[in-house]
């Protein structure tokens, strides 16, 4: 119980930051949605030819999964954070507002339209005095639907580098911190409910012309906006002239710990820092290239296969060297050096299965693979590494199952899958009684953890000096220990980062 409430307290301390950002994105996207969609919808009811293209466009936007729409905005707009999140959520908000406004106006009783015309209203007066007021409940219903959707979908903007309540959910899911997930979900649900009720209250106030309810709705909205954004605005205010260093992190335990470690080191060196965690892997690399993220930890094999598009395998040293040169020449990105540990993709099976099938290396899998299921994260089965192992070892699994990385261990525990792709630094390999199968053909490239700096950060001598101690200082065993603290012992990532800091190999 004390541990629980301590965890909860720690989560709640993050609330002003996450909620403020979430609210800012949500309100901006919705306002933009209303400002753009209402006039568009009115135009559509006047010019029938527009109806099909406009509504189809909005429908298509709606059918694109939220996470994909957000991710697409990053290369399209060439930046991460607030702007792509805003644009994606704006596109997402359009359909209900457009459709309800168009439907509401076109379904106004034609006899009312005729009466309005017969009494001598101009087309404009008809719109403002009859069509819009009569359609108001349907229009408001559309805005409310949009509000709820946008508040919910905004949690995904975390993945494109904009902070939101989704930070709780992403990191909580990945490090199996259920309190964090719950705090994020409850906060988002409450926010959606409060905004929805306030809009409903404003509608009632307007239709009943009740000044009291109108005042109440306005007051509620002001409280929500100020309450939500004050801490956020205050943060901007108090930020001193020192530039903010933005630290990136992907979506797994090790990354959260290492970003906390870097944050601590930079803070100690007097830097203002901002952490952008739970970002998609390619989005993070793009963000580093154009300087929106200043530093993060990546893996040599990932750069080698995904960005350099290399499918050949070289020794770790050569990969590291070629990668460093390529990054510098191609993108101006500085690889400060290898951290010291390697986190390769590895195939792992339960000890029992390894014994009964006499599995020792990946090669031993080939004849059994038609009877086995393999599970991995969402990325792996479309990565070049998978094709490399599959083809090199003639693997032909009964089924490949993609799932959240954090759930793979539960799945293999429950015998739902037989083989998992583990990260070699993952503390859960030992904890779940798994063994790693050797890769004698070296089909998988080496995955040395490397510290990358954006072109701008590469010029910053003080920054380099502050981060230098990480280079060559964390070996496999140390990283595995730190990961276990979080994954098995459920310690906060900051604690694991502190543990690393204390044990850094000088």
């Amino acid at each position, binding site marked *: 119980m004390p541990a629980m409430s301590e965890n909860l307290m720690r989560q709640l301390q993050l609330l002003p930051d996450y909620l403020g950002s979430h609210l800012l994105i949500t309100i901006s996207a919705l306002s933009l949605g209303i400002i753009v969609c209402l006039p568009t919808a009115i135009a559509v009811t006047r010019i029938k030819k527009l109806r099909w293209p406009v509504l189809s466009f909005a429908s298509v936007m709606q059918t694109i999964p939220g996470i994909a729409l957000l991710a697409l905005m990053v290369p399209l707009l060439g930046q991460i954070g607030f702007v792509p999140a805003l644009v994606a959520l704006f596109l997402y908000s359009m359909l209900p507002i457009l459709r309800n406004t168009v439907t509401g106006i076109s379904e106004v009783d034609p006899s*009312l339209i005729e*009466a*309005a015309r*017969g*009494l*001598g209203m101009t087309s404009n007066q008809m719109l403002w005095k009859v069509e819009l007021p*009569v359609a108001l409940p349907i229009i408001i219903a559309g805005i409310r639907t949009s509000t709820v959707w946008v508040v919910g979908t905004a949690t995904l903007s975390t993945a494109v580098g904009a902070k939101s309540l989704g930070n709780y959910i992403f990191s909580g899911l990945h490090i199996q911190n259920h309190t964090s997930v719950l705090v994020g979900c409850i906060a988002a649900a409450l926010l959606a409910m409060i905004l929805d009720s306030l809009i409903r209250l404003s509608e009632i106030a307007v239709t009943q012309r009740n000044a009291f309810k109108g005042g109440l709705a306005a007051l509620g909205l002001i409280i929500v906006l100020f309450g939500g954004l004050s801490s956020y605005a205050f943060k901007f205010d108090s930020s001193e002239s020192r530039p903010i260093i933005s630290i990136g992190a992907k979506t797994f335990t090790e990354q959260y710990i290492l970003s906390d470690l870097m944050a601590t080191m930079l803070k100690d060196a007097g830097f203002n820092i901002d952490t952008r965690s739970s970002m998609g892997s390619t989005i993070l690399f793009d963000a580093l290239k154009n300087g929106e993220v200043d530093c993060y930890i990546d893996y040599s094999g990932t750069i080698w296969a995904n960005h350099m598009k290399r499918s050949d395998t070289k020794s770790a040293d050569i990969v590291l060297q070629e990668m460093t040169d390529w990054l510098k020449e191609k993108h101006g990105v500085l690889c400060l050096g290898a951290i010291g540990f390697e986190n390769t993709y590895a195939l792992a099976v339960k000890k029992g299965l390894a014994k009964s099938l006499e599995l020792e290396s990946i090669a031993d899998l080939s004849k059994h693979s038609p009877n086995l299921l393999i599970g991995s994260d969402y990325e792996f089965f479309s990565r070049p590494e998978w094709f490399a192992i599959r083809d090199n070892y003639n693997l032909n699994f009964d089924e490949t199952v993609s799932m959240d990385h954090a759930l793979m261990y539960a799945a293999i525990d429950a015998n739902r899958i037989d083989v998992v792709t583990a990260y070699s630094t993952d503390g859960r390999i030992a904890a779940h009684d798994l063994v790693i199968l050797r890769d004698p053909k070296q089909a998988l490239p080496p995955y040395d953890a490397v510290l990358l700096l954006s072109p701008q950060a590469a010029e910053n001598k003080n920054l380099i000096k502050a981060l230098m101690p990480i280079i060559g200082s964390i070996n496999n065993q140390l990283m595995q220990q730190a990961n276990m603290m979080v994954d098995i012992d459920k310690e906060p990532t900051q604690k694991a980062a502190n543990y690393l800091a204390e044990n850094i190999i000088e």
Partner: protein
Amino acid sequence: MIELQKVTKSYGSSHSEAVKDISLKVAEGELLALLGESGCGKTTTLKMINRLIEPTSGTISVKGKDITSLDPVTLRRQIGYVFQGIGLFPHMTIAENISIVPELLNWEKDKIRERTAELLALVGLEASQYKNRKPAELSGGQKQRVGVARALAAGSKIMLMDEPFGALDPITRNELQQEFSKLRQELKLTVVLVTHDIMEALLLADRIAVMQKGRLVAVGTPHEMMSLKDDPYVSSLMQTPRSQFEKLDQLLDRKDAGHE
């Protein structure tokens, strides 16, 4: 006051015309009933008078002016219109519904408020009790009264009324008809009243124009209509009230006889 000359209307490319070659005059202060069965073109004719519908051919003039030379919006604000089905705006209060045209004409707020109260009194509704209600809170008869009040609001002397007393129970209808009859004489209104109810036409109209399948088949006073013999359609139409009168006569006679 209102004159139609060889007015024809055909909707779209359909071959049969909804209104065919109608010529008609309505004198100032007169109530003309446009009588005919459903679908014969009464509403179409009425709507052409305030340019809700443009005729295919022919000319219409109001107060001596060809209406095509007038701005339709201005024209409509000068002519009261009671719609088939009333068409009160559900989101507006009764007072707001009545003050639509005065507001469109930018009357002063005080004048509008006075006028609204006056009109509600005129159509027999207690202003303090009804002005802030929504149409949904009124009975059918009360809505009809508000519809008439709204048409009268800007003080127009011309009224076009499309089956204003239809869809009411006979008692309420009779009551409203009587009141309206008085009202239009007091206000010296020129009225075109569309109806499919022969009794209504006979009781309220100064003259009756009978339409059949888009054509005008006869025009005359109620008395002339009852005695008209040479048009088979009109005489068959008048057969209904005549047989009703006879039946009523019989009933009254028997009742009187019984008392003696």
